């Protein structure tokens, strides 16, 4: 089932990744393309990381991840991949990382990961429709808030810093 979910996610990623790359070019001290090739590329890496965590790691580790709700199961992989990405960025990329941008990625990536994890309910053999609806009532608004706030904070940080 992982490849099926992955294909679904990559279809959306084909649209989202170029946008993320181009948005990275906005703001900052350098030229548009210089910014895009650093900050934009990191945004691409962040989205790919969220997809890997939500569509691959969560299904593999499903029995061991805490929480009954699938969205909850996506939370820890989401945070772990974000911290790993931010660490990679600081060590290998040498890009400056402010507090607002750190918070932005800590909001955006787990929001995406929990959404993808939640979508795996369709592949499981033990989820119920009423349970999925119950889970979605609280998780979807949080995912939207996390993604929008993360994106907004990231874009703001590109202009403020």
């Amino acid at each position, binding site marked *: 089932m992982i490849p099926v979910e992955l294909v679904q996610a990559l279809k959306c990623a084909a649209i989202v990744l170029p946008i993320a790359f181009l948005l990275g070019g906005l703001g900052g001290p350098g030229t548009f393309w210089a910014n895009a090739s650093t900050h934009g590329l990191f945004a691409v890496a962040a989205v790919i990381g969220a997809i890997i965590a939500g569509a691959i790691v969560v299904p593999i580790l499903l029995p061991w991840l805490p929480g009954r709700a699938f969205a909850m199961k996506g939370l820890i992989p989401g945070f772990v991949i974000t911290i790993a990405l931010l660490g990679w960025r600081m060590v290998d990329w040498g890009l400056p990382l402010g507090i607002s941008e750190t918070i932005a990625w800590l909001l955006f990536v787990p929001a995406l990961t929990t959404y993808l994890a939640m979508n795996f309910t*369709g*592949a499981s*053999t033990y*989820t119920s429709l009423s*349970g999925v609806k119950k889970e979605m009532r609280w998780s979807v608004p949080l995912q939207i808030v996390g993604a929008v706030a993360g994106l907004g904070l990231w874009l703001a940080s590109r202009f403020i810093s």
Partner: protein
Amino acid sequence: MCWQFEYLKGGVTLELDEDKCTGCGTCPEVCPHAVLAKHNGKVRIQNRDSCMECGACSRNCPVGAVTVQAGVGCATAVINSALGRKNSSCCCVIETRQSGCETRSESGITCGAGCC
């Protein structure tokens, strides 16, 4: 190693009318998660949280003693339904499993993640 997967606690729509139940034992037989069990000639719900609302019990009960709002536990299907998508890659209608699965079997679409 074997895990007993259980989804969210509570909220399952499964109901059993013990007055109507004749104790024929069909529902425990068709239940994939051993939610229902027969005791002393009557059926009772022994593991409600394991119910995946597949609807097998209610469809096979000859006296209508078991009721459940059957459907597919699929977030994508819920989203597609909320967005009014009828012909998306997700083939299931979430309101009732009856119509959803009949559509699915007729179309021959296999379902997985991102589907239902």
